[in-house]
C-alpha cells in the first residue's frame, strides 16, 4: 500500500499523477518528438508522460533544465541545488525537495545542512553564505516575490558576484516552475 507523504525527506518518493500520462503507443508525432528530448537510456517517467500533453513546452524543457543546473562556470553546483531546495520548501513540493536535497548531499558529502533546513527552514543553523543563499531563495519564492536592493546586497556581502546571483535566480525560479507542475499535477507517495 502506498501513502501520501507530507513531510520533507531526502528519500525520493514515487510521484503519483492526478492526470493520466499519455500512452506512448498512441502518441502524436509532436508528442513523440518532444519525448525524444528526454534521455533515451532512462525509462520515460510518468511526470514527463503527463507533461507530454503539452508537447510544445516539453520539447524545450530538458535543455533549459539541464543548462540551468549543470552549465559550466558561475555558481557552484551545490549552491544551485540549494536554490532549488529553497523554492521547493516554500512551495512545499516534497518530491522536488527530496530529489535536490539528495543531490546537494551527494555533492557536499554531508547531510547535516539539508537535515537542518527541513527541520527548521529559515532558522536553520548555517554558515553565512549558505544562510544568505537560502534566505534569498525563500524570499524570492514567496508571492509576491520579495527582492530588494538589500536582498541583492546581502548576497554580495557574502561574496556572490553578478554571475552567481543570476545563476542562483535561475535555479531558484526554475524550481518555482517545476514545483507548480509537480505539486499540482500529482503527489508524492511512499513505495511503488
Amino acid at each position: 500500500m502506498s501513502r501520501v507523504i507530507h513531510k520533507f525527506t531526502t528519500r525520493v518518493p514515487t510521484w503519483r499523477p492526478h492526470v493520466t500520462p499519455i500512452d506512448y503507443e498512441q502518441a502524436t508525432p509532436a508528442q513523440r518528438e518532444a519525448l525524444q528530448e528526454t534521455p533515451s537510456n532512462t525509462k520515460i517517467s510518468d511526470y514527463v508522460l503527463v507533461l507530454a500533453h503539452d508537447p510544445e513546452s516539453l520539447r524545450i524543457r530538458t535543455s533549459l533544465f539541464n543548462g540551468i543546473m549543470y552549465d559550466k562556470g558561475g555558481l557552484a553546483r551545490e549552491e544551485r541545488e540549494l536554490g532549488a531546495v529553497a523554492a521547493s520548501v516554500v512551495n512545499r513540493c516534497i518530491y522536488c525537495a527530496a530529489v535536490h536535497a539528495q543531490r546537494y548531499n551527494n555533492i557536499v558529502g554531508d547531510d547535516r545542512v539539508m537535515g537542518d533546513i527541513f527541520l527548521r527552514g529559515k532558522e536553520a543553523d548555517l554558515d553565512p553564505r549558505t544562510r544568505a543563499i537560502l534566505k534569498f531563495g525563500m524570499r524570492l519564492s514567496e508571492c509576491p516575490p520579495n527582492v530588494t536592493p538589500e536582498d541583492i546586497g546581502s548576497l554580495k556581502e557574502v561574496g556572490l558576484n553578478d554571475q552567481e546571483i543570476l545563476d542562483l535566480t535561475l535555479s531558484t525560479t526554475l524550481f518555482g516552475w517545476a514545483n507548480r507542475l509537480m505539486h499540482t499535477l500529482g503527489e508524492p507517495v511512499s513505495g511503488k
Partner: protein
Amino acid sequence: MTNVIEAAANVPSTGPLADALAMRSKLMDLTQASYEAALLPSDPGGLTRETRAAFACRMAKICQQEGLRRHYGELLSSYGSEADPLNLATTDSCPPASEPRLAAMVSYVDLVTRSPKDASESDIESLRKADINESDIVRLAGLVAFVNYQLRVAAVLSVMGEAQ
C-alpha cells in the same frame, strides 16, 4: 531575438549584469522559446492566446511585476479591444457562473500563483468537473508555472539592473 524578460526588466546593455546574461545567452534563448510555447503556441488547444495573455497579465499584477504587467497588457491589446470581455486580466474579478470553465481556470491561476503549497488533488478535480480535458489541464498548469518563473527572473533583473 527580442528577449521579453530582459526588455521588461530594462536590463542595461553593458556592465556586469549584461556580461552575466551574455554568458547564459543560450538559457535566455530557451526561456524566450518557453515564453513562445506558453503564450503563443501553434496549437493552443482549449486555451486561446487571448486567454493566455489575460491570465499572464493577471499573474503579473498579483506578483506586482510592473515591466511584465505592461508587456502582457500590450500583448492583450494587440488582440483587439474585445480580447478580454470577462476581465480575466483584472485581479480579483471572477467570471460569472455561466462561464464555469473559465471560472475554474481563474481559481487555479490564483491559487497556484499565490500559494502553490495549498494546491491538492481536489483542485485538479475542480478543473475536470468544469469539463476541462486533461491536455488543457496540463496546458494551463504549464502556463501558470512558466509565467511565475518569468515574473521572478524579471523581478531580480530589474532590481540588479537599476543598481548599475
